[in-house]
């Protein structure tokens, strides 16, 4: 179930004055079951990249292999691909349209032409896995709170039973509670169902906490690719790209610069606390 991206290049408005290279020779492979964080400032190409991953955009050159097969080869069913690679857009609640929550979640599986029972059971599973209680299922999605709407929208993609789930800033505009709930649900999808996750986020703190690998995009190119600890060591380069490392990483580096031998690959509050306490002998 791996995704292999090979020399992907995408140029907007090719041949006009507005020509813009959104992706520039990007290659990487995501093995099954990884939790990947994708970062980059606005306009770095990350949104274009994820739309390629489920075949919504055709690249100018280069290709993508899903499970070893070229997704742009003739006869390859992009609809099939889209059921395997689920894509949750930014503010996904804006795509809700049905009269009630349950029917909305059924939309995806219905498009796949599944049997009535299968559609029903998938929708039920999906709603449960995002923590939507049964009492909401008959309600109009438009009467729910912002965080709930978003969870319904994510359930709508989960009901396609994807092997890979891509989420574009799933916590944008939510309050801290809504944010934590959504991220924890994503984490449990990863851990319990073994789903491959690709998460786009601006929060380096969240990335350090959840992702096991980070891919950094800059000007359409892949700038860094490694574990969060490896990537955040380049905090100076990240800053030049308009990004940053988690606050505690800066503190660790500052301490080291002042001659205090704290680990340099600290990315979370817990790690920082433990490292400092160790030095203090507590």
């Amino acid at each position, binding site marked *: 179930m791996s995704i292999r991206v090979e020399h992907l290049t995408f140029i907007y408005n090719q041949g006009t004055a507005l020509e813009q290279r959104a992706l520039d020779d990007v290659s990487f492979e995501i093995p099954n079951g990884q939790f990947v964080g994708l970062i980059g400032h606005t306009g770095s190409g990350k949104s274009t990249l994820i739309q390629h991953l489920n075949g*919504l955009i055709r690249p100018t050159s280069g290709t993508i292999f899903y499970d070893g097969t070229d997704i742009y080869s003739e006869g390859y069913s992009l609809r099939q691909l*889209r059921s395997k690679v689920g894509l949750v857009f930014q503010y996904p609640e804006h795509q*809700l349209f049905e009269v009630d929550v349950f029917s909305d979640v059924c939309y995806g599986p219905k*498009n796949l032409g599944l049997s009535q029972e299968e559609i029903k059971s998938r929708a039920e599973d999906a709603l449960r896995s995002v923590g939507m209680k049964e009492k909401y299922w008959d309600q109009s999605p*438009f009467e729910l709170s912002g965080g709930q709407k978003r969870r319904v929208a994510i359930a709508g993609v989960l009901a*396609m039973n994807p092997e890979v789930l891509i989420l574009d800033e799933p916590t944008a505009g939510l309050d801290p509670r809504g944010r934590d709930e959504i991220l924890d649900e994503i984490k449990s999808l990863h851990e319990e169902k073994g789903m491959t996750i690709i998460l786009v986020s601006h929060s380096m703190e969240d990335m350090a906490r959840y992702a096991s690998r980070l891919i950094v995009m800059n000007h359409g190119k892949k700038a860094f690719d490694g574990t969060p600890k490896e990537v955040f060591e380049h905090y100076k380069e990240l800053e030049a790209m308009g990004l940053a490392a988690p606050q505690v990483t800066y503190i660790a580096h500052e301490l080291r610069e002042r001659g205090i031998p704290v680990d340099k690959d600290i990315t979370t509050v817990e790690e920082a606390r433990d490292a400092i306490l160790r030095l203090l002998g507590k």
Partner: protein
Amino acid sequence: MIRDITIGQYYPVDSVLHRLDPRTKLFGTMMFIISLFLASNIWGYLAATVFLAAAIRASKVPFGFMVRGLKAILFLLLLSVSFNLFLTDGREIFRLGFLRITIEGLRMAGFMAVRLIYLVVGSSIMTLTTTPNQLTDGLEKSLGFLKKVGVPVHEISMMMSIALRFIPILVEETDKIMKAQMARGADFESGGLIQKAKSMVPLLVPLFISAFRRATDLAMAMEARCYHGGEGRTKMKPLRYAGRDYRTYLVYAFYMAVIIGTRFLPGI
């Protein structure tokens, strides 16, 4: 792509046309449209072509940008051309089954195509060189006399200007919702007419909801900025005719004279 719609977009460069009073441009556009219907032969269209080409050049808007706007009317264009082509009586020059093409049909179709294309390009020159606010001001002022008979001129023109501002935003939104539903397995292309109409529901419902939400938000933002109708409003850019406007009206007069003149010329 729907993104290509250029009608109603403003192209921010500094040109003679950009600096003209919007009323001058409104009048010019109306006059140009009338001239297209007055032109009765190739000479008339030639004059219109020269006038249009001069206007395009003067606008400093890239020609390619303007032509892209035509994609939006491609269907309409094909429809009217084929109607004229196949349904005009006259000297037959080609026949295939029940389809027949006549010389008159060919001529009508050609003129119709030119007329439509010029109409769209002509009006888009106005919107490309006039900010919606100026356009609104122009309309409001030109139609100000209607206020006396109870027509809410200010409200209508404000409405139009806001509609123009939100066209590109809603177009982008449509694109996004479409992609989001495609990611949920939607198919907007295949199937019969009913199937297709049905498949639009997941696109149209979110779009309407979004439009209503934006309308509510915008109304609140406008009220928060003390908007309370046209009463007591002043203008940041009040309309004042300058020398160039009077000169432009002169150009219009000459152009119309030429167009009317061409009607008396022999030609196809």
